[in-house]
């Protein structure tokens, strides 16, 4: 568990959505539910952290067609 690499936002969010769906549709078992709920909280934290901290980055690619500019 500790060696597992941090999921991307998309992975974390998708897993969270799956968990939500599980809670909405399955006959929830208490022990399994608690485990999944804890995982949900963890994922929500990961998502929120990613939403808060990261900036967008712009890279400008060099033109390959410089000659066209004449």
């Amino acid at each position, binding site marked *: 568990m500790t060696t597992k690499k941090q999921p*991307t*936002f*998309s992975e974390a*969010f998708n897993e*969270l*959505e799956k*968990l*939500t769906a599980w*809670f*909405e549709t399955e006959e*929830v078992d*208490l022990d399994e*539910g*608690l485990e*999944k*709920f804890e995982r*949900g*909280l963890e994922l*929500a934290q990961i*998502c*929120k952290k*990613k*939403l*808060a*901290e*990261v*900036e*967008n*980055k*712009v*890279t*400008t*690619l060099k*033109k*390959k*067609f410089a000659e*066209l*500019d004449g």
Partner: protein
Amino acid sequence: MDKQILTVGNYLRLVNETLAMIPAEAITIIGEVVDYRLSQGKWINFDLKDEDEEAKISCFATVFKVQTPIESGMKVQITGYPKVYERFGKFSLNVETVELVGEGALARSYILLKKKLADEGLFDESRKRLIPRFPERIGLITSAEAAAYGDFLRILNNRWSGVEVIHIPVHVQGQHAVPEILAAFEQFEQLPVVERPEVIVLTRGGGSLEDLHAFNDESVARAVFQSSMPVICGVGHERDESLCDFVADIRASTPSNAAERIVPSRHEIGREIEISIDRMGDTMGIIVERREQRINHATSVLQRYIEQKMHDLKMTVERFTYAFDRFRLALVETRKHIERSIGMIEQIFSFILSKLRGETDSLVRLFASFDMQKVLQRGFSIVRKNNKIVRAALELAPGDTIQVQLGAGEFEADIK
């Protein structure tokens, strides 16, 4: 001047050599297209008619060279090489370029190309691809100087984070626009798959039909169609449309709208996360409550069971006590009965005993009498008074009654 005699063929070659001396590239001919015909999908024939006088040139072109859609009635400017075709003896212009003149012609051409691309299936809804919900790498094709660039990035930053935008700067209008946009698409295609953006944004601000020509260009529309990455196109204002809009996988109304279509709002997603967690929490709450109810139910069932058992036990004890009392009473009764019976038996016994004893006595007496009998038979007699043997005369007084037993019989006698 010497007269020359030439064959028809040689003469026409001379004419054509002469015609070749006209600087074709430097001359643009303006006129109206009449009798436009396309044969075998390749060969274009039309006449270019002078607007003011009766004059026309027969024109020939191929679809490979001339891609601008034209039709009869359009005003155009063309360049080309004049030639007389030997076989038909007909003068015509080999068209090199066609440029539409005026908004009307441009609009008409736009409609024609739009219909052509639609017929080919470039606008089909079925080929529209989805973009990832949370793209991490976005390709941006636009001019760095354009307001569109700033608008797009501003909205992108307002809404979302963590995206890598790969920008390829291009002219979005003017003569370099089309080749630069085509090269930009090609450049994205050539990136290693892992470095390719998940979606390409092609955008610019609004403008006239002439300004937007690059976004209505057939080759650009085809580049959008052929892109291996989904393309979102956002041009100008709400009302503006371009052919690229129709070909693109997603059509955004403006550059800002393109950003809105690509990334979600972090507030909305944050809220969605909150709701997800709340829902999970609620479900867990319900489960715990239900579990609690089940435990309470089980406890009460158990309690009722125990109470029932206690009650049953009490009843059993009571019944036993009652039965035991009855048994004890019966026992007492029985004992009394036995005691009574014993008394009766004793009475019977003593009765029988006394009877037996009486009988025994008589027998004894009988036996004794039998002994006496022998004595009596020798002449003795026994005198009894009140059944008691009288052994002395003193025992008798006058008036007493005595019984005298003889060896044979007996009698009573009174004493005098």
